[in-house]
């Protein structure tokens, strides 16, 4: 399933387990067993995740059975702040809804003399 590289990157990073594995590898090479350690999922599932990351060019197999982060264009990855974006979006959309709710309250109570 070869898509353009950026889409492959997004797809690879869309999974929190894979993001966590990538972050672990940023601290040094690791074996499949070491990468699997924090998670409660099977080794074959871990291997599948690694394959997705490898196909996206984010990691490569090093000497022996170690995995390590691969060299690749950092610019697209810098754009993929999706992890934080979801929180930013959460607040921005919440504020939109809060604003609408406050306006609704104000128009409902426009006859009252509220002093706050």
């Amino acid at each position: 399933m070869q898509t353009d590289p950026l889409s492959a990157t997004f797809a690879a990073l869309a999974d929190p387990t894979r993001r966590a594995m990538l972050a672990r590898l940023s601290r040094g090479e690791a074996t499949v067993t070491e990468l699997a350690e924090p998670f409660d999922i099977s080794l074959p599932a871990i291997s599948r995740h690694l394959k997705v990351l490898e196909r996206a060019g984010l990691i490569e197999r090093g000497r022996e059975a170690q995995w390590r982060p691969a060299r690749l264009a950092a610019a697209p990855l810098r754009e993929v702040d999706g992890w934080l974006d979801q929180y930013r979006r959460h607040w921005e959309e919440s504020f939109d809804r809060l604003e609408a709710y406050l306006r609704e309250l104000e128009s409902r109570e426009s006859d009252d003399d509220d002093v706050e």
Partner: protein
Amino acid sequence: MTTSSSTPEAGAALGWREGTLVLERTFSAPRARVFAAWTEAERFARWFGPAGSRLEPCRLDARPGGTLHYRHRFDDHEDVWVRGTYLEVRPPERLVFTCHFSDEGGARRDRPGFPGEMRIEVELVEAGGGTRLFIRHAGLDADRGEVQGWTESLDRLAAELGASGTPGEE
């Protein structure tokens, strides 16, 4: 009561640094009304969360040591339970609470790749007849610092590519 020692500076609009997201928004309502929207369960459930989501149920006890517990329901996403504890409740100007992923019973349920305990600080500042709201949402590094490690990795990759043609070292 004077302003707190951490009065947000003007222009602290939006940013992220070391796992803390900082946002600001101005509302035309007075502070007490905005504060009530954060601290009364029925009101909170009317706006908290992205468009199309709802809090069902939502239990909220806005006193120091009080509990926040809700199920966040989405159209395109599985339900998420969240539980939190209020640390500071100072109407109409300051609210601080922690929260973490949870379940129906209120137990803590961490998820790999997601934050553990988060801390949300809300400051309300009078602005004309309206309210300027500041949020500091901290703890946005996942358990064991995965996101921190990840962004450090990106910085290193960028630095390596800056030295074009020079193989980096690991």
